């Protein structure tokens, strides 16, 4: 039983580290603010959550110590990190940061009614 839990802990922490690495690569390689934000706020959230879950399981299984702060941290990150991503994206859009060249659709612009045609910001 303890070996199974150990394997689960190892897999969780490795998955978390891998997802954080994927998030870092996404921030480096993706073309504009919105796609980078997408990579960072999704992959890093899940990565940090699985690292925290692995840490929680480690201390619970090996030391018998139920650390409720880690559970609270998981809930807190799950609630706040996407909202932070949303706010950063919205601030960028309201400040007029252009989309990447390859993007073809901007529904928010047509909904705001300022300009009808899409992708006009990049000449």
């Amino acid at each position, binding site marked *: 039983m303890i070996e199974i839990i150990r394997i689960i802990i190892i897999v969780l922490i490795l998955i978390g580290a891998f997802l954080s690495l994927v998030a870092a690569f996404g921030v480096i390689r993706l073309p504009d603010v919105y796609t980078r934000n997408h990579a960072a706020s999704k992959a890093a959230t899940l990565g940090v959550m699985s690292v925290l879950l692995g840490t929680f399981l480690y201390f619970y299984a090996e030391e018998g110590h139920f650390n409720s*702060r880690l559970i*609270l941290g998981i*809930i*807190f990150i799950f*609630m*706040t990190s996407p*909202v932070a991503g*949303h*706010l950063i994206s*919205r601030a960028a859009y*309201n400040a007029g940061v252009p989309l990447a060249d390859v993007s073809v659709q901007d529904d928010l612009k047509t909904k*705001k009614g300022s300009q009808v045609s899409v992708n006009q910001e990049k000449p």
Partner: protein
Amino acid sequence: MKTNDIILQTVTKVTLFIIILFSIHLFFAGHYYPGGGFVGGLMTSGAIVLLLLAFDMKTVANILPIDYKYMIATGLLFAVGTGAGALLFNAPFLTHAFKDVYLPLLGKTSLHTAVLFDTGVFLVVVGVTMTIIQTIGEDE
């Protein structure tokens, strides 16, 4: 364009309680674990700053009608009072005492006068932080 902050405000309403509870936990855990009045006070003022970010200053002053300058004075009074209380028992200034007390709901609890001193630190930290931030914030 008029912005709509409903996501930020809703998440603030939910997470505020977690932050306040965690700061109270840090405050009371300070004697046996990492934490104490300073970190607890900073985290409480962080929660109030989150409220200030999500809502505007007038709303927050409605929710928490506190003059933070009086809060600083109360905290300093707590600290000096626990220090001077030792003089009444013929002990040197800032001598602390503790006692195991049987409380009706909590059972056997060890009450320490250092918690009162820590309450003073907590109030001063919350008061100073909020005074600084509100003074800078309402720059009109």
